[in-house]
């Protein structure tokens, strides 16, 4: 397979990771370090990798900071280094290394203050950051899948496979982040139950695959444990991260997030090897010992030709043996323990590999890459050196013990404490939902470990966190400056805060901080282990609900007509509705003027279907509504409607609409389009929680009906022509009444209500009959010059009438008295929701904001959102304009509704209007601005 790194063509083998292929090609330097631009090479072979981060691909499909250690090689893969200028191996930033003494933890707190951080920020930001974010929209898809199971097994190593073998009927999910099952055993040559692990694994997987209700997921990492056994699992690389497949195969999403609900979780997550800490332990060529072994056994790649091993536990001896068996020069094993277990010794003796007990690396040599190591011989106490020797080598494989991967245990609320024996965090007690097993549970135990940190050397060059360039000296400084809590140490030094979240540094940080503070590591706690365990693509978290599917748009039953008849569709709350119907070449303002004129001078047709509609049935329906509305509904006759306002308990206006009594035990209320769901929920809450003894049933029916408003002088004529079979005269069918009728052979419910101030009917027909009815009405109104009108025209027309638009003219503090409905509240004897609050001192202050009308200067403009100041006022603002427009007929005078301090006392006054630096004046007037007597309404 061919691939490129920084433009250089290379080749590798199928099944390789990018890191393995680069190693095989002799590429030693993969990145530069974060602060000091030191060269860095492959350090591990898994998700814990701190160094080998590369940018994959380019353009919209680029992936920043991909871990070369877990990136599958594919034909044509393009990888780029993310740091180093002008070149990765010849980096001018290297100069920063000389600044190392000065760039200690938190140095930026102490500098860059003059003349201000902003001056330096740009260069600091450019120097920071890792990869580059794509700037074009992501062409790939993502999805979320939900899953339920009895047992979730995290990790598909031997321990995980064993844990997944459960009695039939048990619903099991097993997730493994790697490309294959078996964990270490898949490649380490071990035997299980007397047979080679690989055959055991094959059989185990086959058996699980064949079991009903068992699901196995590869390349899937459990990344977060949430409440009550909800685990997020991130499935990667469902298809190659190359260009889109041309063969038209199934279009899989790029990644998935599985949300697993599990009764029990087994953590068989294994352990991650920890490094040793000594001077210049960051040189390319220093690798984790088990990783060196894995590269060899799994990918056939040697991390070097002349290899030195250094360890503080038994596990590195297997690496030494394997490297030696592969014909590589294994110079010897430095073991920081004074006594090396006999078994390890014997194994080395067999291969004539030197073992140096009580020894560990104290420094490395090299220019760019590793060329040699100095091994120090520890004194009996381990705290000083007795001597040492130098070795030439091109790889140094280190093991500082193993750290069980218990992040999910901690996220689940399990407590972890540092155990000296393993030098890692261990569970303090059991957890009811989560059980660690296998290597994660330290089972079998790794045994006591030896020294991990070299006792001598320049601590400024002993790296603890490779990714964030944190050294032992930084930890020392933090303690010296009294940042002693592990959380402060983390935040000051940034140790453990980078993309690997301290997977190869956290135990050492705790150990070193404890030593510096002179306390037990177990007493320190540990920085919070947060989700995600490994970073998760944001697309996978969002799933399919991106772009057009981000939020559902609701469409009226008449939508198809609107869409094909020039409607400008806009979002109004969740609804996508016609703002207006544009004619070719017509500007928004002109369309608005034409539509409002059509209604005032002729007749308009308006789609009011989104209007909320709720039916209430039952003997107590009317009594129930009477408790919710400020209006007295007790005497409302069947067949009649009333405008009503409902309040929150604080007395502020929640919503408005009409209440209609259809029959003694059957009411219908309408709500504003935006609040329909809220009002329904509000009613249910009061009924279920407060007044369960009231007998009624509440049914939202918004979706059932298409609602078409016919407004304008000829409205009656239009309905008659459309074939409505009832008496429409004012005597028979007055304003605020409701009738049922047949329209073209279908039942219809007709409300005589008006939001425009014109004679107006709302025709309700079953949704599927909506378009037909709409067209019938258009046809019937043709002679009268009927025109469809959009939401904007309607809002303008109601403004002229001074009708309230809840949410525009009111906010969450507006009480009825502020908008002229105080009297109604006072007159109503019965209690209603919010009533008690209306007499709180705050709600009866004379200087509250009140709704008034404004008349603007001719030819001028009253800007919505402009603020008002009363003559002689001291306060910065006395209110603001909530809605504005122009009168439809005549001179087009600017008019507005406004909330003004003590507003109704100021009719006739002139206020100044302030808008983004411009200033005009307006006269405070009493609305409405049109048809004050309501002659048109009652026509």
């Amino acid at each position, binding site marked *: 397979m061919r691939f490129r790194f920084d433009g250089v063509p290379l080749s590798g083998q199928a099944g390789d990771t990018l890191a393995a292929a680069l190693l095989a090609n002799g590429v030693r330097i993969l990145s530069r370090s974060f602060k000091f631009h030191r060269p860095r090479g492959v350090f591990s072979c898994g998700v814990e990798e701190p160094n080998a981060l590369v940018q994959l691909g380019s353009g919209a499909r680029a992936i920043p*900071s991909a871990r070369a250690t877990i990136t599958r090689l594919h034909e044509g893969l393009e990888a780029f280094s993310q740091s180093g200028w002008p070149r990765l191996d010849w980096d001018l930033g290297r100069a920063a290394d000389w600044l190392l003494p000065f760039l200690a933890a938190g140095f930026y707190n102490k500098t860059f203050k003059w003349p201000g951080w902003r001056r330096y920020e740009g260069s600091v930001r450019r120097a920071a950051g890792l*990869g580059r*974010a794509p700037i074009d929209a992501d062409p790939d898809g993502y999805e979320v899948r939900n899953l339920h199971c009895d047992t979730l097994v995290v990790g598909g190593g031997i321990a995980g496979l064993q844990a997944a073998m459960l009695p039939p009927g048990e619903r099991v999910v097993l997730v493994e982040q790697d490309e294959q099952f078996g964990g270490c055993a898949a490649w380490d040559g071990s035997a299980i139950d007397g047979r080679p692990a690989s055959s055991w694994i094959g059989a185990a997987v086959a058996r699980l695959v064949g079991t009903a209700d068992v699901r196995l997921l590869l390349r899937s990492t459990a990344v977060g444990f949430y409440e009550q056994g909800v685990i997020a699992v991130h499935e990667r690389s469902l298809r190659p991260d190359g260009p889109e497949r041309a063969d038209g195969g199934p279009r899989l999403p790029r990644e998935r997030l599985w949300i697993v609900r599990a009764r029990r979780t087994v953590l068989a997550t294994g352990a991650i090897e920890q490094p040793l800490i000594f001077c210049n332990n960051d040189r390319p060529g220093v690798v984790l010992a088990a990783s060196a072994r894995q590269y060899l056994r799994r990918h056939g790649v040697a991390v070097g030709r002349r290899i030195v091993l250094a360890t503080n536990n038994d596990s590195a001896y297997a690496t030494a043996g394997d490297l030696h068996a592969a014909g590589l020069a294994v110079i010897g094993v430095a073991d920081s323990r004074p006594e090396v277990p006999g078994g390890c010794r014997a194994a080395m003796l067999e291969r004539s590999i030197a073992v140096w007990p009580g020894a560990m690396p104290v420094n490395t040599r090299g220019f760019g890459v590793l060329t040699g190591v100095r091994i120090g011989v520890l004194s009996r106490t381990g705290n000083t050196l007795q001597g040492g020797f130098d070795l030439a080598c091109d790889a140094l494989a280190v093991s500082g013990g193993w750290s069980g991967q218990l992040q999910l245990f901690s996220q689940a609320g399990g407590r972890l404490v540092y155990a000296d024996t393993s030098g890692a965090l261990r569970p303090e007690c059991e957890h009811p939902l989560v059980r660690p097993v296998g290597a994660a549970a330290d089972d079998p135990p790794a045994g006591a470990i030896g020294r991990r940190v070299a006792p001598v050397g320049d601590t400024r060059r002993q790296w603890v966190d490779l990714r964030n360039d944190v050294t032992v000296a930084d930890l020392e400084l933090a303690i010296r400056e*009294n940042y002693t809590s592990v959380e402060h140490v983390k935040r000051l030094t940034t140790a453990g805060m980078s993309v690997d979240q301290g997977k190869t540094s956290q135990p050492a940080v705790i150990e070193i901080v404890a030593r510096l503070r002179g306390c037990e590591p177990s007493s320190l706690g540990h920085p919070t282990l947060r989700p995600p365990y490994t970073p998760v693509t*944001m697309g996978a978290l969002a799933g399919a609900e991106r*772009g057009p599917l981000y939020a559902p748009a609701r469409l009226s039953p008449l939508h198809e007509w609107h869409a094909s008849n020039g409607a400008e569709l806009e*979002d109004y709350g969740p609804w996508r509705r016609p703002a207006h119907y544009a004619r070719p070449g017509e500007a928004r303002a002109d369309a608005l003027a034409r539509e409002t004129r059509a209604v005032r001078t002729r007749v308009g047709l308006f789609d009011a279907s989104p209007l909320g509609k709720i039916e209430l049935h039952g003997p107590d329906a009317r009594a129930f509504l009477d408790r919710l509305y400020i209006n007295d509904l007790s005497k409302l006759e069947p067949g009649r409607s009333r405008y009503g306002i409902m309040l929150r308990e604080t007395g502020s206006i929640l919503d408005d609409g009409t209440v209609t009594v259809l029959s003694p035990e059957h009411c219908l209320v309408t709500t504003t389009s935006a609040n329909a769901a809220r009002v329904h929920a509000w009613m249910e809450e009061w009924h279920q929680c407060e007044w369960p003894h009231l007998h009624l049933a509440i049914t939202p029916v918004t979706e059932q009906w298409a609602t078409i408003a016919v407004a304008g002088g000829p409205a009656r004529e239009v309905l008659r022509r459309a074939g409505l079979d009832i008496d429409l005269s004012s005597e028979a069918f007055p304003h605020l009444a409701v009738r049922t009728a047949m329209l073209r052979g279908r039942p219809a419910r007709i409300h005589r209500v008006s939001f425009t101030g014109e004679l107006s009917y709302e025709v309700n027909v079953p949704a599927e009959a909506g378009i037909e009815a709409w067209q019938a009405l258009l046809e019937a109104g043709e002679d009268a010059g009927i025109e469809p009108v959009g939401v904007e025209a309607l809002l303008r027309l109601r403004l002229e009438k001074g009708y309230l638009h809840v949410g525009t003219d009111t906010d969450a503090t507006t009480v009825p008295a502020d908008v002229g409905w105080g009297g109604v509240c006072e007159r109503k004897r019965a209690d209603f929701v919010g009533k008690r609050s209306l007499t709180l*001192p705050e709600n009866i202050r004379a200087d509250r904001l009140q709704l008034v009308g404004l008349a603007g200067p001719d030819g001028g403009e009253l800007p919505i959102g402009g603020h008002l100041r009363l003559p002689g006022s001291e306060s910065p603002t006395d209110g603001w304009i909530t809605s504005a427009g122009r009168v439809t007929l005549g001179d087009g005078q600017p008019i507005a509704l406004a909330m003004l301090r003590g507003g109704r006392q100021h009719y006739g006054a002139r206020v100044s209007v302030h808008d*983004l*630096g411009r200033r005009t004046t307006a006269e405070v007037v009493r609305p409405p601005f049109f048809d004050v007597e309501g002659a048109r309404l009652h026509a």
Partner: protein
Amino acid sequence: MRPAQRYSVVNVLLQGLARNRGWKPAWRAAEPRPAYDVVIVGGGGHGLATAYYLARHHGIGRVAVLEKKWIGGGNSGRNTQVTRSNYFHPESCAFFDRSLRLYETLGQELNFNIMLSQRGVLTLAASNHELELQRRWANAIRMNGVDSEMLDRAQVLALVPALSAHSRFPIVGGFIQRRGGISRHDAVVWGFARAASALGVDIVQDCEVTGIDIKGGAARGVRTSRGAIASDRIVMCAAGHATELARETGIRLPITTMSLQAMVTEPVKPVLDTVVISAVAHAYVSQSSRGEIVIGGAADIYNSYAQRGSLSVMRATVAAALELFPSFSRLRLMRQWAGAVDITPDTSPIMGLTPVSGLYINCGWGTGGYKAIPAGGETMAYTVAHDRPHPLIRRFGLERFSTGALLDEGAAAGVAH
């Protein structure tokens, strides 16, 4: 008085040559003393700033800040650092602008770089209606003498090109406060601690206040996990834990403690130079100086002291961030966390006296009290020193919840930040 050891380039160089061995503790590790003039409960930004200003402006040096864990471990060390003063009501605007002004010189005053980056806070509008409401808001801010500009769609896209990719909701415009921006939360906490400590304030960590002693309607002292401490002036700055702290004193608070989450991506090279907020897509997004994209959104929906965030709310927040910046979908989220925030019914803070004499309260910052830290400390210090509310915080008193004179910033704080 200033910290004995200045933080400066010269000292960084000198100390660097001396292997950084000469740096002194940023703040003293203090043991609690038996009595103080003022005891402050809570070592968050507000507690520490109050201590600093008490010592600095009012000469009260026998002050202790008692912190149950480690300073800044509450919300002050886990917020998304948005600093702005574009509040709707004159009282809020005046207070928060005072805070922003203090922030503008805080780095120098504390001799600690707080990394204030006044890169602009842009609030997007997705519909004409939203734009109209923003205009009302922008004008309110201007009427209060604070900068604020309306931008049209083209101006928004010119400022933040990454917003231009196609998504569900349009961008019709927005408004910006250019003096708004971000700063470094830990630095603010540490800077105040260091400066306060240098003025004699004792900062006592791992010291949980378990009760407040009241006799004859007056505060007498506190009981702590490290013994009793006498003081007749006690300031409660316990944020999400305010209810629990006050419960024993008989003061019942209008506070709900909830989880507010934030999250960061892996660091990337600079792609976003402005703080972007949207109400329709409930998220706000900025990029830190280390390069992470920092994302916040709405609070989780139920009471919680857990300091952990719900998966569903986190997913909704990520989806909202991607609605704004579709191209970020390939970035990876690196860490998700949450704080226990103290939410009031009107989303305005509570500051001032309490019915118990000598007991003062500072809480209710909810999702937005980081930006208030300097002014919160300054005005609380005044309030404690004079036993009457500082003029800037008169409207923020606890009494307003008995008169009903709420100060609803719901509109201004529509998105948590």
